[in-house]
């Protein structure tokens, strides 16, 4: 079991709950969702509780994350986009903290499950569609008809635009999911090399130095990826929300 790189993604029930024939058990995944939310919420809440005019080190981390997401959203969607700031900030913090928590050994990575990232992506696209139609009515469909396209090409371009719009939730969710999954599998495989090589005695121990070094290096890389994927998720969310605000390109 120790060397099975897939095992870390198993979901196990901690408190079985079943409603209407569906399994809604409180699982290890749910536990880590709760942990993610509590860690992120508590950090943001506690570090800003002193409301220092001159921020402490931790307070400035919270402020930096706030201003980071705020400027990202403002750049992508303009000041009108700031109405979505709580959503984008929640998504960014949730994904970031979930990714980072998942890097601890024996911890479960919430975002390594496609259904979770897909649900988050659907939340984004759903917000885009609902808000787009609410604000622009059928004018929102202009999103699929770029201006200045020759009449003959319009059907083709509209088809391409529709396909690209529909593939957004898929690409958004699969990108995050696949990055997390692949990173954790790679880590586990290299770490597994260390233990299995060491079992071959002195030569094996010497030989295991390289995978050990790789494990350390990949851990560093995974920290970067954890941050980067949260950033990418948030940036793309901002760009899609911009479409809801300004569908005419």
């Amino acid at each position, binding site marked *: 079991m120790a060397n099975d790189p897939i095992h870390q993604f198993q979901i196990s029930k901690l408190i079985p709950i079943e409603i209407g024939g569906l399994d809604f058990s409180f699982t290890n995944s749910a536990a880590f969702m709760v942990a993610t939310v509590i860690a992120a919420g508590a950090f943001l809440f506690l570090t*800003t509780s002193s409301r220092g005019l001159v921020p402490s080190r931790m307070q400035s981390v919270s402020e930096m994350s706030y201003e980071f997401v705020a400027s990202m959203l403002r750049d992508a969607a303009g000041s009108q986009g700031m109405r979505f700031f709580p959503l984008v900030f929640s998504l960014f913090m949730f994904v970031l903290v979930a990714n980072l928590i998942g890097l601890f050994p024996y911890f479960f990575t*919430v975002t390594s499950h496609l259904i979770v990232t897909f649900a988050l992506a659907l939340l984004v696209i759903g917000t885009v569609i609902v808000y787009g139609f609410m604000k622009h009515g059928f004018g929102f469909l202009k999103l699929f008809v770029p201006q200045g396209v020759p009449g003959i090409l319009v059907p083709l371009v509209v088809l391409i635009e529709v396909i690209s719009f529909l593939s957004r939730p898929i690409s958004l969710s699969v990108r995050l999911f696949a990055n997390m999954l692949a990173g954790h599998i790679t880590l586990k495989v290299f770490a597994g090399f260390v233990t299995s090589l060491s079992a071959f005695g002195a030569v094996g121990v010497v030989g295991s130095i390289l995978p050990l070094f790789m494990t350390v290096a990949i851990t560093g890389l995974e920290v970067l990826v954890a941050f980067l994927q949260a950033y990418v998720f948030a940036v793309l969310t901002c760009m899609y929300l911009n479409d809801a605000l300004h569908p005419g390109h």
Partner: protein
Amino acid sequence: MFVTPGYAEEVAPAAGEAQTDAGTAAHTETGAEHGGGGGLFPPFDSSTYPSQLLWLAITFGLFYLFLKNVVLPRVGGILEVRRDRIAGDLDQAARMKSEADAAVAAYEQELAEAKARANAIGQDARDAAKAEAEAKRKEVEAGLDQKLSAAETRIATIKANAMKEVGSIAEDTAAAIVQALGAGKVDKADIAAAVKAAGK
């Protein structure tokens, strides 16, 4: 690892409690038996989806509400207070600077006025002293002129007297000379007329 017992329950929900951990561990490793999914790769096991979706909705929903209603207004407030405070401090600094500039300007103006006043006082004093000296000089000059004219008058009188006496002396001398020459007695009036004619 705590994963195993829970997983066992999923494999056989009814009989899960009865099985030993060791027994289920073998099943878990092979992954052959899986509740509904049948040995699926865990992320693609749809039997876990309802639970994940439910708990994601609960946790993320609460997280969203907490951030939206508590954390973000607070952080936004902190940033706004800081921005206002910095702007206020800058305003105050600008106001103080303009006040300092005004004070410097007022000081310089007062200094210039004081200098002008000092110059005026000096000028007045100089003018007054000059006028006084002038007046005294004129007085002295007038005195001197008076004395000069008095002296000239006296000299003229003395000169006139002397000239008068010169005439009579000349007559006497002429009479004596004429007598000594033996020309007899000459009329006094003739002599006087002759002297006068000669004196001219």
